[in-house]
């Protein structure tokens, strides 16, 4: 029973010891009985289907899960959130001269040296012209998902085959994440419309595998890329991504041994597989944070950003709600302790502010807070002040079991401190549409409490600025632009966010974000619930998995191997 698990622990210990002498992070090192084995096929269950594998059109997590085996970028993100070169020789920085600022300090250029001898999976060489072509395509093709970073590029110079100099017209702090994939010029340059080409399903890349078969709704087969740059890798001959209708079926197939691995279990599903000796479950905190956002402006459609919510406008009520929210119980009873409590939206990575705290569960404090602010209990047990009842609604996505159970817990917990809570859920296509025109209640301001999850990305600037800067409160006046849904307005926070965006100094940026997020927590505009876990599972005879909160589970698929 405990065999494979104990062996894995020993293997980990061995890997750590060996890792201390041989600086080879990422390689699985010595595993059970003498290292990795070559060969074999892994069938991996996906309960969503990738619609396209072309990096410029991928807009689904599952698209990246499969795309990872083919598509690679210049720089990637390591598990600890640091940037490491992938197709580039080194990470360009100010210190090593790879990043240069213009004399007036308003522009910058980044020089990438490609690894020597790189080849696409069809054997053609990878050159700096491919890097330039990637930028050009991203700017030309009207169907690309977004142009973040590429928009800020003025020109790319290619002084030789392996050097690309990217000239930005501004200071672009998140430059390292700009080229997360490189497109093959020789394959695509003559395509009038790449979206209609075979590249969508059979992309040519530099990754450890190449796609050899794509059957929609059925399976996607990836075979070893003989031109992969790392000798003797990948270990596996083949990976087959099998399409299954939902995560419960994937779990059943994993138990039955029909598949060797699966992607994305819900926290509440882990109990189902944890006790199986043949299965290993990986639960690691991901960057996504589940939160309850409190509307400080009046709850009405197209709300006035300067109005004040009759109940939630009072910071004492917001603080009381925080104290009345039994986060520890929720984590224990509903999420089976598979997640960690959160205290800010940036839970991981270099920018994560470890000193920014959130106060804990304390219903007595909640009662004191409300009494002190003049909210008195009426005959029905609900507090009121100046004729305003403390009656609120909570909105989350319909059909999400864990969220619906949390709502039930909150109704009881808030009732105990004299706050009436009612459920007003909406389908995620409406609630999370993020669109003013589609009537997203967060955009329009027509909610009291809204519970959902969001991830900041490894460079948090876009998200922190979009969500917590006062200039980004969506309103009729600005045409609904911005994601500051709580209508949190704080001059100190604005100043800190602006400072963070104007410098390349990572420590300064980190301190500035911490200041802004501390102000946000002081105002209790958001109750941080927990860090959503990234949970994947595989059979115990599959080795080499490594979790990385910034990349999908397949990001080190070249290191996977099977062993009986």
């Amino acid at each position: 029973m405990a065999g494979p698990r104990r062996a894995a622990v020993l293997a980990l210990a061995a890997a750590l010891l060996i890792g201390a002498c041989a600086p080879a992070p990422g390689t699985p090192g010595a595993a059970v009985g003498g290292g990795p084995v070559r060969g074999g096929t892994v069938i991996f269950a996906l309960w969503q289907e990738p619609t396209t594998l072309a990096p410029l059109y991928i807009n689904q997590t599952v698209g990246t899960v499969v795309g990872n085996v083919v598509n690679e970028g210049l720089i990637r993100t390591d598990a600890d959130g640091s940037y490491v070169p992938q197709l580039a020789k080194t990470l360009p920085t100010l210190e090593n001269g790879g990043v240069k600022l213009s004399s007036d300090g308003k522009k910058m250029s980044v020089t990438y040296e490609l690894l020597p001898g790189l080849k696409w999976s069809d054997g053609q060489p990878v050159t700096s012209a491919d890097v330039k072509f990637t930028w050009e395509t991203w700017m030309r093709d009207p169907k690309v998902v977004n142009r973040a970073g590429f928009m800020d590029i003025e020109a790319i110079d290619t002084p030789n085959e392996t050097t690309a100099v990217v000239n930005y017209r501004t200071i672009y702090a998140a430059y390292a994440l700009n080229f997360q994939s490189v497109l093959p010029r020789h394959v695509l340059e003559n395509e009038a419309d790449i979206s209609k080409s075979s590249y969508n399903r059979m992309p040519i890349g530099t990754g450890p595998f190449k796609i050899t078969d794509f059957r929609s709704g059925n399976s996607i087969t990836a075979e070893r890329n003989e031109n992969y740059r790392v000798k003797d890798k990948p270990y596996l001959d083949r990976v087959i991504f099998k399409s299954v209708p939902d995560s419960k079926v994937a779990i059943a197939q994993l138990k039955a041994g029909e598949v060797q691995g699966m992607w994305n279990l819900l926290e509440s599903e882990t109990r189902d597989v944890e006790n199986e000796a043949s299965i290993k479950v990986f639960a690691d905190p991901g960057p996504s944070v589940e939160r309850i956002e409190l509307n400080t402006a009046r709850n009405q459609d197209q709300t006035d950003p300067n109005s004040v919510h009759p109940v939630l406008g009072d910071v004492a009520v917001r603080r009381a709600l925080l104290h009345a929210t039994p986060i520890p119980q929720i984590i224990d009873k509903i999420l089976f302790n598979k997640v960690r409590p959160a205290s800010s939206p940036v839970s991981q990575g270099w920018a994560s502010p470890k000193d920014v705290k959130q106060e804990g569960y304390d219903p007595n404090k909640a009662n004191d807070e409300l009494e002190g602010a003049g909210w008195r209990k009426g005959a029905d047990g609900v507090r009121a002040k100046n004729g305003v009842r403390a009656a609120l609604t909570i909105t989350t996505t319909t059909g999400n079991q864990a969220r619906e159970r949390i709502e039930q817990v909150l109704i009881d917990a808030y009732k105990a401190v004299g706050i009436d809570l009612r459920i007003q859920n909406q389908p995620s296509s409406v609630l999370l549409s993020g669109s003013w025109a589609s009537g997203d209640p967060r955009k329009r301001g027509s909610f009291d409490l809204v519970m959902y999850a969001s991830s900041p990305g490894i460079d948090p600037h876009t998200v922190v600025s979009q969500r917590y800067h006062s200039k980004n409160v969506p309103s009729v006046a600005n045409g609904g632009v911005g994601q500051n849904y709580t209508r949190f307005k704080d001059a100190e926070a604005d100043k800190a966010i602006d400072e963070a965006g104007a410098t390349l100094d990572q420590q300064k940026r980190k301190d500035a974000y911490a200041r802004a997020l501390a102000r946000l927590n002081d105002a209790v505009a958001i109750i941080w619930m927990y860090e959503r876990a990234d949970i994947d599972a595989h059979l115990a005879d599959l080795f080499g998995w490594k979790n990385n909160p910034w990349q999908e589970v397949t990001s080190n698929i070249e290191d996977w191997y099977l062993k009986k």
Partner: protein
Amino acid sequence: MGRYVARRLIQAIPLLLGISVVSFAILRAVPGGPLSAYEGNPYVTDADLARLEQAFGLDQPLHLQYLSWLGRFVTGDWGYSLVSHQPVLALIGERLPNTLYLMGSVFVVTVVLSLPIGVLTATRQYSVFDHVVTGTTFAFLSTPTFWLGLLLIIVFGLQLRLFPLGGIATPGTPFDLADRVRHLVLPVTTIALVQLGSHVRYLRSSMLETLGQEYLRTAHAKGLADRVVVARHALKNAALPYVTVVALDIPELFVGALVTEQIFGWPGMGRLFWDSATRSDYPVLMGILAVSSALIVLANLAADVFYGYLDPRIRYS
């Protein structure tokens, strides 16, 4: 007869146009839309959304979008998926054989089983066999497929390990007939059990009605064997309503079984429709809806024509 068919076909044109207008309007009335998948991405700006809206032609007025779809559709250009960027015809072509294979097997199984069972329950009315069949078919008729499918998966797949839990074949293996059949058993059983109920009920009641007719007593009086009376004289007349039921199953051969394909992870048309619906992939949905509505109209016509063959008293004019 030829003129009748031609007239019915011409009449079908405005009907199909009307259906396409209504489908188009309903699809667009659903909140969300194909861009909502992008709106959840924090890196997608409002400018990106406006660009995508234009690239997909969603910024045009609705009636123009409909007319341009229709114009291209009738010339054979069914458009491209807004999500996977694949041609709609190719997407359908990829899924159709799988659905024909599944639903064709169901069709054969239900027809082959329902004919003898329906006839036997009628000729042996109130026998133990009749009671058992009637009870069982009623039970399955009122069973939702999603429940039955999951039950079969749990019992025969998970616990007894007799059949695979889903999919059309074991991935990564060369074609193997036995493997194909093993994958086919549970989904076919799920759909067939439910469909069998209705088919048997229809046949049984119309057989009972026919068996009470005077002309059958005449046939018996002529000294014809029971078998001949039932097979030649009763069944042919009783089959009329049954033919309607069977003919109306034909569109399903193409459309597939939405719920069952979803439960069993079957790469067919039903799942294509479901996935496209959840992503508001309008061109794909319109393509499937257009074909299925055309097939329903044609199947009705086929049933009417077949009536004439079964019952020469019916004349077309």
